[in-house]
């Protein structure tokens, strides 16, 4: 069953076309990496899926519903760098935000919600930090809390926007392992720049640069990079890509075609 279904979607900010004729179907239990250059429309695509933006043309269904209707079953993990670190909030309160129900008023969250939030933190190994202020944690720990918050919503789809931006290499590896574990029962879509690390964990790759190319396999080929990043293979990653049978010169020609 498809959890995300995008057909002929166009999107533009003030007449500047960001996404053009995008088609994408993501099946349940897929683990998709969305890659592409900065400004290529990755984050825009994420916001469309979340229903924060509306497409100019085309259709977008999440869990067979409009994104706005489906958003409660989507666990969104934003980029940590955009968050206010000095904000007066504890780890458990961040996780509790995942249980937020706008119909429910007054300040206290129910005990059941607290248990759920605590369980989500526990799943991310963050339960011991529950009463700490969010600003006291390291970048990797904060990211785990944000994932716990998304898990507390009991999502069918976990959507992460560059989750490793503030994490070191070792931390990245751990995070992707964790996502792989979560992928056992949740569909995971992750926007990322860690091309090499991620190809070891994901099941498929979507390249976004105005248009979208979906590859139902984990390997990231030089061809994809040439098409997507319009820069030389050496600049992106020097070693592994050559192994895919594409010489640097060919890759260079490739990028000429796309210009």
């Amino acid at each position, binding site marked *: 069953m498809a959890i995300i279904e995008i057909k002929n979607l166009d999107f533009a900010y003030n007449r500047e076309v960001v996404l053009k004729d995008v088609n994408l179907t993501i099946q349940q239990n897929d683990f998709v990496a969305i890659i592409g250059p900065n400004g290529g429309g990755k984050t825009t695509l994420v916001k469309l899926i*979340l229903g924060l933006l509306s497409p100019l043309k085309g259709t977008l269904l999440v869990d067979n519903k409009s994104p706005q209707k489906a*958003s*409660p079953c989507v666990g969104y993990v934003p980029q940590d760098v955009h968050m206010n670190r*000095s904000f*007066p909030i504890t780890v458990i309160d961040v996780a509790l*935000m995942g249980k937020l129900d*706008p119909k429910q008023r*007054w300040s206290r969250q129910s005990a059941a919600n607290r248990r759920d939030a605590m369980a989500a933190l526990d799943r991310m190994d963050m339960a011991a930090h529950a009463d700490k202020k969010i600003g006291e944690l390291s970048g990797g720990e904060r990211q785990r809390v944000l994932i716990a918050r998304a898990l507390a919503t009991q999502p069918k789809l976990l959507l992460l926007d560059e989750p490793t931006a503030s994490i070191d290499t070792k931390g990245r590896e751990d995070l992707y392992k964790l996502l792989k574990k979560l992928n056992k029962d949740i569909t995971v879509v992750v926007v990322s720049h860690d091309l090499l690390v991620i190809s070891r964990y994901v099941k498929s790759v979507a390249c976004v640069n105005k248009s979208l190319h979906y590859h139902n396999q984990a390997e990231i080929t030089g061809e994809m990079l040439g098409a997507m990043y319009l820069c030389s293979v050496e600049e992106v990653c020097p070693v592994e890509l050559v192994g895919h049978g594409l010489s640097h010169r060919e890759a260079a020609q490739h990028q000429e075609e796309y210009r």
Partner: protein
Amino acid sequence: MIEALEFEFMRNALAAGLLASVICGIMGTLVVVNRIVFLSGGIAHAAYGGIGLASYFKWPFLPATISFSLFAAMLMATVSYSKRHRADTVIGVIWALGMAFGIILIDLTPGYNVDLMSYLFGSILAVPRSDLYIMAFISVTMVFLVTYYYQDLLAMSYDEEFAKIRGVSVKKYYFGMIGMLAVAVVLVMQVVGLILIIALLTIPPFIVEKYAKSLFQMMVASSLLGAAFTVTGLWLSYRFNITSGASIIMVSGVAFLISLIVNKIRFAGSEM
């Protein structure tokens, strides 16, 4: 200080200061965490246009001023909600225009002159009882609204996008918050003055932010800290015969500097 309280005007000044601390503690917390300090300055200054309108057209003071500042606040909210990066410029323009508009109208008002100083520094020593009741009423309303909508305000302030995804109507709360800010600013301003409002709105929440573990704690602690500044400032003003509003602000400013130094020492070496 005790003997000073024998005078009714001193008791009223103290009550007005304490109520202003509560209102500013609550609103200031929201202002600081949502980073709309500049916007609240804009509202407070643009409100002068309302004072001009009231005196030129002989309209009743409070309704005219509140309507005008609500109008200016909604303009600023519209710009800051949709175009975050352009917002500060536009707010600056509305800020300046509102004040200029007010000053010209007051110039044109025959035989009547509102003292600009009393608008800036208020007249906390001449607060009538009726104003105290109005301030008490807003404080209670505000405590109620903030408690009732606490989760939504928290979610909006911490992570607007996530709040939207959870189904919180962020736009409604954003405009609601700024509307509430406009009303509170005007009502408290005519009592304690524009400068004191901005000081009480920003300094206590800023000092408290590093220690508070929740918005609620931050609101309570800011109110208490604001109250402490007000009492100390009023005492200094009585003891040394200096302008009360200014002395409250000086006390807050000194506390602000001390907190900066303490933070520097406490968090030395860590990423702050």
